[in-house]
């Protein structure tokens, strides 16, 4: 039989997203392996994982081919663009379970959107109550918060406030895409509706 095809929740939105100008660029991130790690002994885990887990709340750090995002005092979201979900979970499990930790594959739990351009901060400000000014939310910052009525994990990729990643529960992906397109409308002068 043919290999199983993957489908992305936002396939139907791709054209609309492509039409956006560079000032409010929104692109769908490819599927990546993601896992939630729960663990008390951070130091040891970082060692075992060969990647530093951020201990400062609301920050993220590069970790291998992916990222490690602080989700809570004993909780992180790890991603990898090279591992399969099973590989990532297995690798982390081997490292943290002996330390009393746990790991859960959540690769499909959320999808990622990349927001780039000088106006994306204005778009986010229409539904995100936290301060995204580069002075306070520069590269390496992250936050679990609300964007519109969807819970999101928000990450800053630049110090200029013009490059963000938004992770959202897959079932909310369509809502958030609609929400973002609507919020970006005023920055797309050609658009007239």
């Amino acid at each position, binding site marked *: *039989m*043919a*290999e*199983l*095809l*993957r*489908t*992305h*929740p936002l*396939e*139907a939105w791709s054209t609309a997203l492509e039409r956006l100008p560079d000032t409010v660029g929104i692109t769908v991130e490819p*599927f990546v392996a993601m896992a*939630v790690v*729960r663990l008390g002994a951070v130091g040891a885990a970082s060692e075992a994982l060969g990647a530093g887990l951020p201990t400062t709340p609301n920050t993220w750090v590069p970790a291998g081919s992916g990222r490690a995002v602080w989700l809570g005092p004993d909780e992180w979201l790890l991603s990898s663009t090279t591992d399969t*979900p*099973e590989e990532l979970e297995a690798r982390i499990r081997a490292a943290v379970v002996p330390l*009393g930790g*746990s*790991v*859960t*594959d*959540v*690769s*499909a*739990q*959320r999808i990622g959107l990349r927001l780039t351009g000088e106006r994306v901060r*204005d778009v986010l*400000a*229409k*539904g*995100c*109550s*936290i*301060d995204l*000014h580069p*002075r306070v939310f520069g590269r390496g910052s992250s936050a679990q918060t609300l964007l*519109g*009525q*969807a819970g999101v994990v928000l990450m800053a990729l630049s110090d200029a406030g013009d490059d963000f990643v938004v992770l959202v*529960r*897959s*079932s*909310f992906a*369509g*809502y958030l895409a*609609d*929400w973002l397109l*609507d*919020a970006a*409308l*005023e920055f*797309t*002068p050609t*658009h*007239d*509706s």
Partner: protein
Amino acid sequence: MTSPFRTAEGGRIDRATTLEFTFDGQTHTGHPGDTLASALLAAGRHQVATSIKLGPPRGIAAAWAEDPGGLVQIEEPFPEPMLLATTVELHDGLVAHGLPGQGRLAEISDSARYDAVHHHVDVLVVGAGPAGLAAALTAARSGARVALVDDQSEAGGSLLSGTDRLDGGPALEWVAAAVAELAGHPEVLHLQRTTAFGSYDDGFVLALERRTDHLGTAAPKHVSRQRVWRLRARSVVVATGAHERPVVFSDNDRPGTMLAGAARTFLHRYGVLPGRQAVVFTTNDSAYDAALDLHRAGVRVQAVVDARPAGSPRREECERAGIRVLSGAVVTGTQGVERITHARVAAFADGEVGAVSAIACDVLLVSGGWNPAVHLFSQARGRLRYDEALGAFLPAEELDGLSVTGAAAGVFDLAGCLTDGQRVARAALTALAVPPPGEDRLPTAPEPVAPAAPLVLWRVPDTSGAGGHTSFVDLQRDATVADIERAVGAGLRSIEHIKRYTTIGTAHDQGKTSGVLTSGITAELLGVPVQATGTTTFRPPYTPVAFAALAGRDRGRLFDPERVTSLHDWHVAAGAVFEDVGQWKRPRHYPRPGEDMEAAVLRECAAARTGVGLLDGSTLGKIDVQGPDAAVLLDRLYTNLMSSLKVGSVRYGVMCGVDGMVIDDGTVLRLAEDRFLLLTTTGGAAKVLDWMEEWAQTEWPDLRVHCTSVTEQWNTFPVVGPRSRDVIGAVFPQVDVANEAFPFMTWRDATLDGVPVRLARISFSGELAFEVYVNPWYGVAVWERLLEAGRPYGITPYGTETMHVLRAEKGYPIIGQDTDGTVTPHDLGMAWAVSKKKPDFVGKRSFARQANQDPLRKQLVGLLPVDRRTVLPEGSQIVELHADGQLPPPPVPMLGHVTSSYRSAELARPFALALVKGGRSRIGDTVHVPVDGTLVPVEVTGSVLVDPEGARRDG
């Protein structure tokens, strides 16, 4: 079409451009920069509306939001009820008319866009008058993040209404320079046409920006018409100025009667003369500016009537200009019909009014002093004090992170406002540990002339014989001095009672001009200090805000998120009819052409019972529970024992609240000694995870267990029916699906083209069934593989309705449908799911309460309509008839109600589930259900109606 009252030059209007608008069916012209009010005045029109109750004409009495007179209805470009002519910016094609009191909503829905934006600053300055601009400049120069918002179309505040000079030049040149400088600071947000309408905790200020209203029909469609700014400031500077206050006298509602300051605004800002012949009535010096400015502009100022015996130091200035000044005199009333023709003037000493004479005029300018606009301060719960000298309420305390400056703080001279604005801003910066700017120059203002003390005069004794019935306090509510007298006479003392008795302050202007007057007059009548009377509470919003502006973008499909599974597009393509389950969209059934729901459901049920059906169960909540103490947590939260569950096995479980009532149910898969996968109801997913976290974090932090939501990590596809084994066997050839190898209530891991898949023998239908769990990346592909493999057996996708029928035939309850928060596991006949081994679990203790022992508790049973035809409406009540077969008179004792009801293909008759008092003891009885006025006899049965011995689930 002409504008006879437009000055030859001056004003902030663009005379080069002419705008055409229609008011009360008449066409007029005006210019960009005009308001509807200034354009009407330019045309010589004062009357805008008629009064709400009594019907006399009402005119423009002020120049901005405090105007109590000029209420209008907008018709074009889009109907909008009740705006003030003084706040409507003129644009081409505007169509409006005066309002007698009630606005009119459009019949069609509003297509304009509205939005909201969060913005964070160090310092927020509200008001771009001299004090506000000075504060904003200081804050901006420090490099702090600053927002300056102002409700006018341009900055300047009071400077727009006068002829002040700064640094030896026109003050407005300084304003322009200040605005330009602010624009040069990257961290400054400067918004005009933006009204701060609410002030809340922690420096949270809401402001409404009118973005496109002034553009009329030219407004771009993709830009929001109005925007709510959610401003979060570490420090708020309130520089909102002051509202001029009238003095109450008889017939003070006659068009042509206007606040003195407003007349200056119309003259200097809009190039409009309020009339040709003016009388000025004042209790303070500020009105002298109006008198002199109008005189210079060519208005014949008949007299300045100053209630103060000593008058004003500015008397000579007036007399040099040939303006008569009557000190120790008051205006006692007006004459005229549609418009004032005379002011009635009399000497005034020690509260006594002398002989009255009439002075001809077509406009009467009044000033009773100034009320600082303390609304935002008061909304932030700042205390106010009454200032005897000003006759006004002022901030009585310093608030953390909110300061008041300029006229709003009782500072009325230009130089004072500038220095005070700067002082307040520097103090705010210091409090925020932001170094104030070194270079922070203020413009030099001319030395203010020391004003004579104002006289606090609320009302002029009514000598007209009208007994105060024409002395209006609140023009928008037609409330008079007589009404206040009557309220006090009725025994009322509290200002809140007075307000309600007279309705003063409840109209569109929320008492901006009438509030303090009412306090003053009430205090006079009661013989108590004004401080004791106080004011009514200042409540948001400061000015009215359109519902749609507050709704913002949470409208239509963005009103509430739609959650969908990865199969949604497939369901849509398959013609599914959807049902809202919480925020989820779930297929309810898949009608074929010509099928109604009943036909579709009968077909889907038959397929599942005789062949094979396929359901998208992906909305079920899923929680991954891990850790050495995972089983302990589950034992404490489920009514049944989970620690004894074997790895590789599945168990159904029930959760109760501490009150012993069922809150959720579902299956539990033991993945490893220290790991479980919990399935919850679709609606209960978030609640159950929160519930588990709450107990684990707050009550049993010692437990080594972690809970993670994996609801969207797994698609769940029940494959249901006698042929399900064939389908699963075909798609997963490597899995031994024989009953012995893969028994009921167990799970197995498998792969499909290298993709991990989990299979479980779980049945919510009573049929042989498998559940397929897969990463939704591959959900559609796996779903289609199942359909493909099932084609020989007529595999049929089915929706929630069929799922409900199948489970109901088996007596499986739906939590939230067959329960309502008052039902225990025992009531559901699930004592078997309540562990007797466990010493305790959440809810157990409540089972022992008296009410839980009642044999007449409602219990879940089946109902079979005797006529074998009637499908009982869900929600129907169940009753017992008298011996005579009649329904007793109300209140009729009720036995319970129908919770689920369906037509059963399997039973070839309708059936229902119901909660019935002592239900299990009534099995075999016949009770009755009122349906559309008839009493339908139904037989009480056990709740399991299909395959009670459970022979089918193993196939």
